Each structure stands twice: as C-alpha cells, then as structure tokens.
C-alpha cells in the first residue's frame, strides 16, 4: 500500500501582509503550522497502512525551505518519506499552478512505487479555497472524493475502496476504484501523539528537496506566477460593520437591559413577536 499525502505549511492567520509589488503574500516572520486538516490526512494514511499490514506513506509539499519543518512533523506522525518541492520559480502560484506541480510530482513518485491513494486536507486555513485537491485529481485523471470522513473498506486486491463523505443531506457512501484522491475532514482520523522513538527518528530525518528542474523538469510556463491565471489586484483590510451601544447589566439592572434587548429584537421585524395575527384559516 502506497499513500501520498499532500500537505501545506500555513501561517498563523493573524498578522499577515501582502507584497505591494507582486500582490503575493509575505510569509516571512509569521509563525507557521501544518494545516490542521492535513495532519488528519497524514494520520488517516498511517492508519490505513497499519490496517492493510504495511506499506509506505509519502508526504509532499510545495513551499519555501522552511516548510521542511512541516514535513518533519508528518514524519513524527508516522510518514515514511517526505519530499519538499521548493524553488523560487514556484513562487506566486495560484491553485491551477499548484495543482500542476503536485500532480507532476505524484506522477513521478507513482513511477517509482505505484500509488494507491492520495490524501489532502479538505482545505488550507490560509487560503480556504479547497481547489488544489480537485485540481490534482482532475490532472491525474483519477476519482475524486471530497469531504471524506471514513474509509469503510480498502481492498488492494479488488482495487476498490468504500468511502464515506459528508454532504448537505447527510453522509454519502461511495464505492470507488483505486487509485483515488480524497480530501478529508477531521473526523477521518483523530491525530495521535507521536511515540518517542518516532520523535527521535524524525529529529534526524532530512526531507528530500526537489527543485523546478531536478529530479523532475516542471514546465516553466505552468509554474509560479507565469502558470497562474489569477492575480491579486488589490488587498485590503476588511471594512468593519459599525456597532451600536454597549450596555451592562451591572450598570442598568436586568430589567432595563432586557427592555432594550426587546426593542432591538422588534427593530429586526421578527414576525413571531406578533404570533399568527395575520393567519386566516
């Protein structure tokens, strides 16, 4: 069993800036974490490996050299191999360019050791686009199951899996051929604490680093800013709705406060305060 998990190192969502010249995000100096959903994807891959009695979990990310930290955290979590795809030429990539790079990388990994399942977190908490997973599945021409919450069955001989996914009406139970690409919710697998031997092994681990030209030659037209159809026209801090008065129970007493609250509720024209007066049977 070979699982590939694509992860992203994301900045803490406070304290962000935009480069005024390129319109891209400045990530330096901002605390970085593994995208929370991605840790659950790694855990799901490790549990799947245990379930089928062995295999390999390969973790990949595209990002700056610093993203190696995020990969090492995934090694602690139980991944076997980690690849950092890092080159200045990848900078400024939108979701289309990112999905190109990850898909090409996975094709290369697959040529060495065939891949049975690819996992992504359902979305990254910085961009919140949820587009890269679907983009990679489309490029690889394999089935896509988004918002996966459980892998009920994983049959390497029959080359099929049964996956549960969360949809608006409830839970959809899907049967798919392998390989499949899942984007996962946190329920897919709770993240366990890494045992000490793993932490020790991870501390010594050095992720492989792939550039834009070696070992894979990425098409320069499809990477970075050049390969990105979308650009940030402008970035600005959101205009905030202005608030009204703030009153306190301690100052005015409960009755006065509740009277004011009722007045505001009436201002909202909520029908049920005058119940069913207009209804004629």
């Amino acid at each position, binding site marked *: 069993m070979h699982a590939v998990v694509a992860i992203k190192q994301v900045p803490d969502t406070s304290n962000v800036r935009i480069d005024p010249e390129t319109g891209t995000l400045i990530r330096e100096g901002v605390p970085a974490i593994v995208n929370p959903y991605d840790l659950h994807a790694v855990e799901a891959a490790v549990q799947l490996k245990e379930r089928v009695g062995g295999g390999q979990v390969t973790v990949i990310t595209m990002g700056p050299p610093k993203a190696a930290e995020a990969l090492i955290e995934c090694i602690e979590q139980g991944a076997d191999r980690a690849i950092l795809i890092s080159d200045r030429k990848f900078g400024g990539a939108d979701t289309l360019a990112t999905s190109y790079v990850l898909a090409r990388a996975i094709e290369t990994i697959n040529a060495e050791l065939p891949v049975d399942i690819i996992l992504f977190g359902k979305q990254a908490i910085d961009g919140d686009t949820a587009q890269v997973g679907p983009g990679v599945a489309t490029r690889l021409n394999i089935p896509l199951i988004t918002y996966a919450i459980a892998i009920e069955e994983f049959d390497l001989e029959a080359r099929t899996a049964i996956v549960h996914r969360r*949809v608006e009406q409830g839970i959809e139970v899907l049967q798919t051929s392998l390989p499949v690409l899942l984007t996962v919710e946190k329920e897919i697998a709770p993240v366990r604490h890494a045992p000490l031997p793993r932490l020790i092994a991870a501390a010594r681990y050095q992720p492989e680093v792939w550039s834009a030209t070696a070992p894979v030659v990425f098409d320069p037209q499809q990477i970075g800013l050049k390969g990105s159809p979308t650009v940030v026209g402008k970035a600005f801090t959101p205009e905030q709705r202005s608030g009204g008065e703030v009153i306190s129970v301690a100052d005015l007493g409960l009755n006065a406060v509740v009277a004011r609250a009722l007045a505001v509720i009436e201002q909202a024209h*909520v029908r049920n305060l005058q119940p069913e*007066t207009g209804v004629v049977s």
Partner: protein
Amino acid sequence: MNAEQPVVPRIWVFVEQQERQVHPVSWELLGAAKRLSADLPGSVVEAVLPGHQIADLAPQAFHYGASRVYVIDSPVLEIYRNLPYAVAVSQLVMQYRPEIFLIGATTLGRDLAGSIATRVGTGLTADCTELAIDPAQHILAATRPTFGGNLMATILCRRHRPQMATVRPRVLPMPDPMPDATGEVINVPFDMREEDVPVKRLRLIRAEEQPNIEYADVLVAGGRGVGGPEGFALLEELANALGGMVAASRPVVDAGWMDASRQVGQTGKTVRPKLYIAAGISGAVQHRVGMSGADVILAINTDPNAPIFQIATLGIVGDLYDVIPALIRQVKGQAQDGHAHL
C-alpha cells in the same frame, strides 16, 4: 487558453439541483449575474442545468434572470458525481466559451468548480463576497476574504476564460423572481455511459435533522461562554420563542457540543438573518465574516472587551444565564399579549 474575445460575452450561472430541488444559491448568483451584465456591454445571462429529467426546472432560471438555459440531461447525471458533472459542464464551457462562470460554494459546487477550472485551464476564485466588473478592463473583479478573514483580496483573471468564481449561499441577496420571464432552452447532448463512471453511490445516510441555518430569519448562536452542551437547551428555548434556530461558533463545534451543520463562520456557514443573537461568543474575525451580514445583531457576553461588541447593534455586558431567561419570559409574555388582543 483562448485570448480572443467571444462575440457575445456570456455570463453563466451553474444551477445546482439535487433530487430536483434547486439550491437557492443558484438564484442568488443569477441576481449577481444580472448586475454584472449591466456593467458589461452586450453581455447575456445564461444558466447551466445538468441532471436527469430536470428540464422542467428551466423556467425557474428564466424567472431569476437567465435568457437561455443549457439543459444537460443524462442518466449518469441523476445523482451528483464529480466526473460526469465535470466532463459535461467542461465540454459545454469549451463549446460556448463564456466570459464569466459563477458556481455556488456549496459542498457540490466546491467539489465541481476546481475540477472544471482545471479541465478548462482557467482561473477560479473561491468564496467571493463581492463581484464587480472592473470599469477600466471590463473584467471580473472578485473579492474574497483570506487568511481567516483578516484580509480581503480582489482577484483578477486577465487572460484566461471563463473567469470563474464561487460564492457561498446567503452572501448575495436573493433577487425577486419575474414570473412572466421566459427564454430559450438548449438541450445539450451528453453521451457518457455508466460504465465510464468510476464512482458509485452505494447509499445515502440521511441526517436526522438538516438544520438549514443559512436561510433562517432568526439565529440564536452560542459560543464557548455557554459553558457546555446543556446550556444550548436555553438557547433553543429562546430560538423557539422567536421562531428561529440555534447556531454555534467553531469552538463549540470543535468541543462536540453542537453539530458542524450549525457552525457559523469562515470554516462554517455564512448567514444573513434578520436577527442574530450571539450568546457567549467573543466574535473572532473568523466568526464575524460569517454573520456580519445580519440585519440586527444582539450580543451578550461577560467580557466588555469582546470583539463582537464592535459590530453588535446592541451589546449587553452580562451573564447570558441571567439575560436569556429574562428575555425568554418577556418574549413569551409579548406573544401571549399578542393573542390576548386578537
């Protein structure tokens, strides 16, 4: 990757239907498409409606402003699956080359939009909160929150077509239908066979309750300050008295006190009720982006510095366990008075 401009700039909206029920976000998008069309000379607003035996839904799209509906009817489109939908819609996009293509940021729409954009090789902007035509360049200016709502970014797609965007339900207003409007139906052939679809739905486990908080007029939302799952019974009582529903902030859902379907905010749902009562919610930016479109916000929190007070119509510093029971008594009392005067 076509650089040339199409003769007629087409603004397309994906009409999402499941079990023949059209998701209202489709009509919200048609309303937005009409507004964009007014700023894009010569443009037309059209709808794409895939499914099986759904042609009779097309008139609804006319009522909300489409002049033409492309109906893609095939048994493989009976229930939503990524591959047949992505292939069917992408083929249509390649054929007609629309200028702009809008899709609802629902579970289905998010699954589909990225696949279509990748097949077509164009740009896609997710979860937009504002759509406009850039007056100088005559292109779509799609504004979205990013970094958990800390920053707004206006995204442009200059050379690739269509310019694709997704918008969450309830971010845009619902237009008034025009019941006399009609238009043209184009029946689009689609020849994918069931054996070419690698994913089969074995079953659908329907949720016992499907709280549709996006479309509720009144929401009583609880945060960490509620203290535990039992406290939500009190919020439920107030919600019932007001004819509304209970919602929750992310910490509450993460703690397992409430179901994720009730979560408001960046990683939950966007709501725009007439009345939003925030009880024990501090109001982090990630929460505010999901609810600041409410007409009236009433916030109750023990912390006078809670950020929710910056946007509340009325902020009450106090214990929700004092304020809400008193409020319930008053609301129920008024309701009884209302009956008494009949």
